[in-house]
């Protein structure tokens, strides 16, 4: 078991005297806007079920405070045709999994158990890694604010999902995992577009091998400075990162607007408060990348969204992150090899609402 991943901030070691070590230092969060996240997004191979989970460690409310960092955990599950259900920000994590925090061999199953305090939604999964993570990336903005992330795609899962009180057993899924470290305020953050797609691959060994192709894209759109926006597309082939298309090689376009009736607001508690109007979520998202002869085009159609209303640490206006699920087609060429697949993907549109 990955005992060192149970959520107990007391275990966080003291800051290193010579400063933080590496891009994702395992040092104490000492300021209110410091954050450390573990993020998960999984989709069942038939596209019927989707999962988003986020475990966030936040710095103490006051600088140099001895108070423990705060932890917020949320779990969302989507069932096609029914919609999203969500925990509050107090999801219970019996066992966490992270290839970053606890490196382990490929094709080794580990537990991942998260459930709402209310009992459902919940998942009890065995996760295994099949791919290598990308190099970490960092978006600095608004002075000392920054967002640093690292993604690993091709995460394979199998286990039980409970959505709306209904148990789905033995669901096979594939997705991605990400770790985030940063220091940012929500007003300074602006917004982002994150997402991924794994070739579902129907080969006999699909449940144990890396997807033939996987793609992760990012677009960070801080309010300031004007040139702070950045984006990237990363492409894996058979578990190895083959191409990193940097910001200048990437274009992102959208069209239309998702019907607001297809967006639900979570957690339920948010509906009791006067939350600003949600931003118009695009209906279509196309991300293209081209570098030399290599290219990829990802065409995502938004189908259903959950607006997660996140309480701000330093103000009364909440921040919104929209988890959007829908069909995606990917095609392209890398190192002379063509690829194309259709599957379901999850995209995050963050920011946008009044007050964000």
């Amino acid at each position: 078991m990955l005992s060192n991943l149970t959520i107990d901030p007391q275990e966080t070691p003291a800051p290193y005297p010579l400063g933080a070590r590496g891009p994702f230092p395992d040092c104490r969060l000492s300021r209110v806007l410091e954050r450390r996240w573990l993020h998960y997004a999984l989709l069942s191979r038939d596209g019927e079920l989707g999962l988003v989970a986020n475990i966030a460690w936040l710095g103490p409310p006051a600088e140099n405070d001895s108070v423990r960092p705060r932890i917020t955990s949320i779990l969302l599950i989507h069932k096609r045709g029914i919609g999203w259900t969500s925990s509050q920000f107090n999801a219970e994590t019996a066992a966490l999994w992270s290839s970053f925090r606890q490196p382990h061999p490929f094709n080794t199953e580990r537990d991942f158990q998260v459930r709402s305090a209310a009992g459902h939604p919940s998942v009890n999964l065995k996760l295994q890694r099949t791919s290598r993570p990308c190099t970490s990336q960092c978006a600095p903005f608004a002075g000392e604010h920054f967002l640093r992330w690292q993604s690993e795609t091709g995460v394979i899962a199998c286990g039980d999902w409970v959505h709306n009180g209904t148990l789905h057993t033995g669901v096979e899924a594939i997705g991605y995992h990400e770790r985030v470290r940063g220091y940012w305020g929500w007003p300074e953050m602006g917004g982002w577009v994150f997402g991924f797609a794994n070739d579902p691959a129907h080969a006999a060994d699909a449940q144990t091998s890396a997807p033939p192709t996987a793609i992760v894209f990012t677009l960070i759109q801080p309010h300031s400075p004007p040139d702070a926006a950045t984006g990237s597309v990363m492409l894996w082939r058979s578990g190895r990162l083959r191409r990193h298309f940097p910001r200048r090689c990437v274009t992102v376009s959208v069209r239309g607007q998702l019907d607001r009736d297809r967006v639900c607001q979570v957690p339920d508690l948010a509906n009791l408060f006067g939350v600003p109007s949600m931003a118009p979520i695009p209906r279509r998202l196309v991300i293209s990348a081209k570098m030399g002869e290599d290219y990829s085009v990802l065409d995502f159609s938004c189908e259903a969204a959950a607006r997660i209303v996140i309480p701000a640490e330093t103000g009364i206006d909440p921040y919104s992150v929209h988890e959007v699920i829908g069909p995606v087609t990917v095609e392209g060429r890398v190192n002379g090899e063509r690829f194309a697949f259709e599957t379901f993907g999850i995209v995050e549109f963050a920011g946008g609402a009044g007050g964000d």
Partner: protein
Amino acid sequence: MRAVIDGTARLLVDTVDELSRRAPAIVAAAAHEMAGITLGLHFGDDTHAEFRPQQSRLIALAVRAQNPQVEAYFDDRSMRLLFDLERRPIDQILAGSLDVRGERDNVLAVWRTFKLLAQRASGLRSVQILWREYRDRFPDYWMKQLILPDTENGAVKNGAILHRPSDTGWIALDYLDHRHPEESDRLPSMVGGMLVPKSRSLWDGRKSNPWWELDAAYDSDLRDTMLNCKTRVRDEIAAIIPDREPKSALYDLIREYPKREGKGLRPTLTIASCCALGGQSQDAVRVAAAIELFHNGFLVHDDIADESTHRRGEPTLHTAYGMGLAVNTGDAMNLMAVDAILSNLPTLGLGRTLGLIHEIMHMCRETVEGQAVELGWIRDGIVPTRDEDYFMMSTKKTGWYTCISPCRLGAVCAGETSPERLDRFNEAFRLIGIAFQIQDDVLNLQGEESLYGKERLGDLLEGKRTVMMIHLFRTVDPITRRRLEEICHRPRLEKTQEDAEELLETMQLFGSIEYAIDLANRLAHQGVRRFEEDLAFIPETEAKGILRQIANYVTTRPL
């Protein structure tokens, strides 16, 4: 499926007709630009059209114009190629294919009018369908040069042209614009989705545009939206009314009035306001159903008070089933409406539901006060002398629940609880509501019973204090006034159709109807102006575009 468009002139006339029904704000703006100019159009297919503004309406006829101030000639090619949005018009019109004549200012006014029509109407899906039909009749001019060879990446598939990577450079914007038909973007929606969406870039490698910032949309399709909202709310009402006894004496009667469909103005205002302020259309449906139930309850009681015999083309409830059942049915409708409002608690939460109750209470209070004022006037034989008295009564009796409250309630559904912001709806929709009511009163005198629904001259038989009546009593000589008072003071059952005809003739003689039409027009324009000023804080979306169309609908309504 529409009939095949016969000739270019017919295409333009049909386009204006479609716009008048679907997007009156565009027509009103175009008529304003035309400013009294008559335009004659001639086409290479030997068809002709006349365009002229009439107040806020645009009259388009497929005839040769008599004495036009501006004339334009398009050859056979030019109109067809103008549709091709992938090419600039200047590249398409050959020398001699377009000829425009008239005084410079008039020509410029016409140019502005057509530019406005092109900019605001071309995005409407219904207009695109109309023009596509026309274009499809003449494929030779535009199709040949765009089809790429059948190569690995550039095959023609199902009529769509798939560009090769080398053509587009795999730029995301090009990909969206060229490789995928727009229809795949569509999902059923109650409000919105009536415009063909434009692609926009979020990131081109250097410049970032926030994903949450939409291009402004000023218009939408009022006709289809009203139909969507009306249908959805009708279904909701059907679900609210219980399927149990006593059916024949109560619940079947409750279903009677909502079945007699109106225009769907209130449901559309409620749902569009909710969407315009960022809410979900689904959240406003039950409230819109509650308003309709209140409305129908008020109508049942109003028909009893007015001794009306017909409502929406059929006998009133008390005429058909007797007074006792009708009164009870009206009460039950109001009760169910309250129940429908309360049932929002689990979905909208306590705060918004309390806000809704507050708004509904206000709406009902205004309505019953307005009804009391009018009934009091009739009982006491008073015909007010000032239009302002009518404005006050009309706003209270119908303005609040027809225009103002639906908007405010929709906004509350979206979570808007600031009294200052909710009040921004009041003045614009007060003016529009009065104009709408005056027009309804005019239609009762002039319109056909089958279209209007009430019996012709029913308002005169009821002794209703309309603007025409007030103007007439203010204007006539003392002798005629005594005669009019003698007719008006009679109970309804003692009035004859001849009495009503006499009143109507006198109104026509003293110009009361023209006065009312002009007054309604002025009020409607003031309402539209206040709409733009007071509601500028609402972002320009299709939902706000619907509210704008409704505001302008009053100015372009044929009387």
